[in-house]
């Protein structure tokens, strides 16, 4: 398999909205599903407006981090389904590692500041 490490790093760091959208696509979802999932996992803190989501999906498709994966529903209620590409998965993992190392630092900083009181 191709090494995706180098091409994936070009996309870092991700905006919060982009990270949450990619994280939500660890299983295939349609746009509305992404909105609901992102709101749920962020405890209602992040709500994606349709303009923001449409722009993000268009970009992610262009960057080949996600792909279309069929449709759900019938008739007027048809919705396109999106899924991560291998490159998208790699970006998500690398960004996760970056955030995890920041979060370790944040815990450390909180401890030090707490201790200095």
């Amino acid at each position, binding site marked *: 398999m191709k090494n995706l490490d180098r091409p994936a790093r070009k996309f870092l760091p991700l905006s919060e909205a982009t990270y949450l959208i990619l994280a939500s696509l660890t299983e295939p979802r349609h*746009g509305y599903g992404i909105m609901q999932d992102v709101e749920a996992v962020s405890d209602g803190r992040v709500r994606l*407006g349709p*303009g923001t989501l*449409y722009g993000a*999906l268009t*970009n992610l498709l262009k960057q080949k981090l996600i792909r279309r994966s069929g449709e759900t529903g019938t008739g007027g209620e048809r919705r396109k389904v999106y899924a991560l590409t291998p490159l998208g998965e790699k970006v998500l993992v690398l960004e996760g590692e970056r955030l995890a190392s920041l979060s370790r630092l944040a815990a450390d900083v909180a401890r030090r500041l707490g201790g200095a009181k």
Partner: protein
Amino acid sequence: MSGEKATKKVFRMLMAWNDEKEGRWLAEQERSGWHLTAVRCFGYTFERAAPADVAYRLDFGPSRFHDKSEYFGLFHDAGWEHVGCRGLWQYFRKAIVNGQIPEIYTDAQSRIANYRRLIGLSVCMLAVLGSQTATNLAREGQSNSSISRYPAILILQLALMSIFAYSTVRLLLVISRLKRAKPTDA
């Protein structure tokens, strides 16, 4: 007024850098009992209705080359009603519930990205007009016969070019304002 509904037609230009102001104006109409029923090329049609608290948003939507069903689907799913369009500007509205003002763009980055698209289009038009004008001017220098015919076209082209140049500058100012503004929560 008995029975029949009063309507009014309003002539109003839309300026690309004023989309937020336009939305606020439409919301103001709705609050004062004028419900938007149609978006027309050069204005709007309103109908008398009970005053309501509604958010109006304009979006510079996808071009004709894109599949718009996905675009409109997302807005519909998020509870926005599509009212109409002027060119590529799409008009949406959504009721304000419990004072919570809904937004179609929830971070500054995505809003800025869309204004950049608009600037790209404006710059494109400038380039096309500019090269046309340059060609015309060059041709004018060569043959005497055409000189008298060109002033009107030249003036029109220069006028259009200044409009596009002006809107580019205004849009750049909107972007810099958005960049300076505090990031909205989510």
